[in-house]
């Protein structure tokens, strides 16, 4: 409830600033400054022709498929780095380096290799998220307490059983945190990819707003991007995290 009130105050303050700065004093140009009312109008308009819904659905679908591919690649890469001392020493620093590369840097490559297609966008998403996932998989396995491994081995665990029944559940909390971070990287990379290409999606709707000099549409799309990011985080990753931690008695209360 408190948060809702805060949002109302924020929107009111925004509208107030707009009213004073644009309408009253003329400090800012109306085409450069969005207003809550303008964003709401833009929202209604884009909802009416279904464009906003279509764009959000497209982006989500792309984001999720790119993320799934990134998880698969990231987990395999992370396991390889974890298993091989050679890769740990030589490849990991490189992966760490690539991880810091902003995903927009992959756009030129993706366009050259895949054209202005969905694959090009997926490529950017995968590049944006896979390396961070690989690093977190490696770290999660490394942080498994040695006592668990020792206990399992003296209870007769084979290598396969050790990974399946001990290492995987033991590193689950950290793994979910890594996956969550991977998703936020994927979602950001998706926008970088969509802005550059021409297929329908939130990134494209945002650029369209710019081309039409419709700052309210730009603002609206930004809000939708944030909202989708929050919803996925809260509804999937945070709930999973909470459940796992609670089951192990690692949270205080509730």
């Amino acid at each position, binding site marked *: 409830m408190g948060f809702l009130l805060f949002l109302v105050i924020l929107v009111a303050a925004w509208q107030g600033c707009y009213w004073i700065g644009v309408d009253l004093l003329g400090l800012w140009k109306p085409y450069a400054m969005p207003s809550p009312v303008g964003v709401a109008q833009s929202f209604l308009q884009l909802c009416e022709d279904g464009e906003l819904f279509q764009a959000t659905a497209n982006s989500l679908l792309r984001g999720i498929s790119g993320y799934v591919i990134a998880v698969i690649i990231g987990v395999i890469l992370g396991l390889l780095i974890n298993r091989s001392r050679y890769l740990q020493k030589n490849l990991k620093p490189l992966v760490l380096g690539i991880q810091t590369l902003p995903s927009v840097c992959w756009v030129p490559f993706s366009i050259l290799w895949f054209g202005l297609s969905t694959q090009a966008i997926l490529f950017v998403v995968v590049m944006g998220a896979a390396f961070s996932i690989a690093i977190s998989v490696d770290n999660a396995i490394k942080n498994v307490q040695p006592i668990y491994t020792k206990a399992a081995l*003296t209870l007769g665990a084979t290598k396969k059983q050790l990974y399946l029944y001990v290492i995987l*559940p033991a590193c689950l909390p950290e793994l979910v945190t890594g996956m969550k971070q991977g998703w936020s990287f994927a979602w950001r990379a998706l926008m970088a990819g969509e802005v550059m290409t021409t297929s329908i999606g939130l990134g494209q709707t945002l650029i369209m707003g710019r081309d039409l000099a419709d700052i309210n549409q730009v603002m609206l799309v930004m809000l939708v991007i944030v909202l989708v990011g929050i919803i996925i985080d809260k509804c999937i990753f945070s709930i999973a995290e909470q459940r796992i931690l609670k089951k192990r008695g690692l949270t205080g209360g509730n």
Partner: protein
Amino acid sequence: MSLILQGLCKRFDNSEKDTLHEIDLEVKSGEFVCIVGASGCGKSTLLNLVAGLERPTDGKVLLDGKEITGPGSDRTVMFQEHGLFPWLSVAENVKFGMKLAGVSKEQQEQKAKHYLEMVNLWDYRDYPIHQVSGGMRQRTALARSLTMESKVLLMDEPFSALDKQTSNRLREELQRIWMETKQTILFITHSVEEAVYLADRVVVLSPNTGKVAEVVTVELKRPRHVYAPEFVELRHKILEEVRGEAV
């Protein structure tokens, strides 16, 4: 069952001398052997070598004539920090080793019940690990080890992280369980009292030489009482030995 340690040596990479030096020891079937020594004498290293968690620099450990090269369920270890899995309940932890070995579900249930009752934890079977006390955790770990019915059960100071009262209660229970099961046990402890209370034989390790300083056979009748004069006398004698060997 026969467990034989033959000229066992262990030297760590960063060390000038052997932590363990030419240890010879034989543990007989059904015997309860305690290893005591001042801290740093290599007690835990010895246990890790038998468990197969570490490799000896020289010499070997033979179980039923076969040299030990790695960890296995015929030498289950009970650790100081329980080593239970926090994502499993008490009963699931107890069944874990049997699950790995592919024991049928019914038999898992049956054995888990048997051993959980033995350690008085049957009522707590569905509790998550984080909701039971330290003593209960160690009892869960004990039940888990017992289900393996290992040739020899290795125990690495299993009660030393507990408070005195709980630790005393647990060693009473362990004595009772050992008398019931006649499980062969190799037990590491820094407490001479604990060793005299539990063991058939007490092996004193010397931190100076890394060798066995003395082996004392405890002939006191079970159940033993720590205030009995013979107990106190023997405890004192071994304690002097341990102190004498300490640096």
